[in-house]
């Protein structure tokens, strides 16, 4: 079991504009935590800062006891964090299989069951018959599953999912919800960003509501249910 992800007082800029104003959050081992908030409130920037893709101006990010601040993305990935960005960024002229194989990275802890092509195809059966197809010719849902599968091939202990169900058809959202719950049951820690409260309540243990680059609510989703004024103020209901 790995240690927690801890983000303290994270400030980040997008170009010249200040986007994050001191974000604090924690993901405990095995937990599934959601960043809730409308478009443009800083969810993606938070994810990208954790991954080292957006430099943090101030603050501290640690994972599993290791200080990640200032490390390049490949070092952060190597400390056990997998990333599925909202833009998906499937390599379009590589086949589905190549997209997965390129991401292979051995697990950090010995004794963990490593992810293999077979395990990915078992979790996302839809990908198996497509394995020779180019990544650029997949549907949105297939691309999203491939994005998650690609992140898993690196055997992360923490998975960052940026809006995994955004723009997908309701049936596909249902399918992916089940798959993410299945994934959660493997014991992996998950931090995901979401605008959609119903998806979040189905999978997350805890949520942070972000608005204007600050955390406005921190607690269990049941507690959020009892505070309709917060939902109305910060979320699209």
């Amino acid at each position: 079991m790995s240690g927690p992800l801890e983000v303290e007082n994270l400030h980040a800029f997008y170009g010249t504009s200040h986007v994050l104003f001191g974000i604090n959050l924690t993901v405990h081992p095995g937990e599934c935590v959601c960043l809730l908030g409308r478009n443009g409130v800083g969810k993606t920037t938070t994810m990208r800062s954790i991954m080292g893709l957006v430099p943090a101006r101030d603050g501290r990010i640690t994972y599993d006891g290791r200080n990640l601040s200032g490390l390049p993305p490949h070092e952060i990935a190597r400390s056990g964090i997998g990333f599925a960005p909202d833009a998906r960024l499937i390599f379009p002229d590589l086949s589905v299989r190549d997209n997965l194989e390129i991401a292979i990275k051995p697990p950090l802890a010995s004794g963990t069951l490593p992810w293999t092509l077979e395990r990915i195809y078992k979790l996302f059966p839809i990908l198996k018959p497509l394995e020779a197809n180019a990544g650029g010719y997949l549907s949105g849902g297939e691309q999203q599953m491939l994005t998650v599968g690609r992140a898993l091939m690196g055997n992360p202990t923490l998975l960052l999912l940026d809006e995994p169900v955004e723009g997908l058809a309701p049936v596909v959202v249902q399918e992916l919800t089940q798959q993410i719950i299945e994934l959660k049951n493997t014991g992996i820690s998950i931090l995901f960003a979401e605008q959609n409260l119903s998806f979040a309540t189905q999978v997350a243990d805890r949520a942070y509501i972000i608005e204007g680059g600050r955390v406005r609510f921190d607690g269990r989703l049941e507690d959020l249910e009892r505070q309709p004024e917060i939902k109305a103020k910060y979320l699209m209901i």
Partner: protein
Amino acid sequence: MPTDWGSLLIQLFSGLSRAMMLFLVSSGLSLIFGVMNILNFAHATLWLLGGYITFSIYTLLAGYYGVSILLLAPAVVAATLALFAIGWAIERTLVRRMYGRELPEQLLLTFALILIIGDLIRLFWGVQNLRIVLPIEPMPVLGSFVNPYLFFIIAVGLIVAGLLWWFLARTRTGKIVRAAVYSRDMVSALGIRIPNIYALVFALGVAIAAFSAGVFLPIIPIGLGMDMDLIVQCFAVVVIGGFGSIVGTFVASLLVGIVYSFSILIWPDGALAIIFVILVAVLIWRPWGLFGTEMRF
């Protein structure tokens, strides 16, 4: 204008061999831009350096063993390896500082490299043109004579193009390079040590260019300033083919090489102009090149 089949055929072969050289130099230029977003203006100057190093090694060997085409092979291999090492060192020390910078800054660095390497060449090899003279008998083809070495160049060019294709399509590192053309951030976020990929792409691109310079020594003398003529044509090739696309670079090399070769027959002074007319036409029709894709970061 000569219209007999023999001279048209000669022009075709010389166009094809020219296309091979354009491809070998442009493929590196295109990959370096595709993966790192760096326009390496010094690419052809490193090509030229490769040619001079090949010349010196060959001359040294020929001094011991006598003039022979076989001695060209070890000279070319040694120069290719030398330029791979030089390319790696340049990327690690200088070019890596330019990632994410604006084009004018990249231009300053790579233009400085052109001047520095050019002066080093002047210092070590002097200003006169150099060539390797090999006793090669011209071959009669349809009533004209063709230098059979052109066939060798075309074959070698195709083999290297095939190897490069194999590397990009079949090896894990090659697939990572293609993925990096699409998104460096994503490749890096997968835990792949992207700085090593950058160094490899730069070194490989420069090495392939050096290889082509060596292979061409028996038919064209090398001299200062040739890098400038070549880089301009290579930029045309890469833009026509589409930055980052190896297939596009190959097709555009064939197009530019052959068109240039026939233009010389018809309108010698306008050969380069015709290339640029094609370039402009492609840019209007498909701004991202024949085989390129619209840019992403």
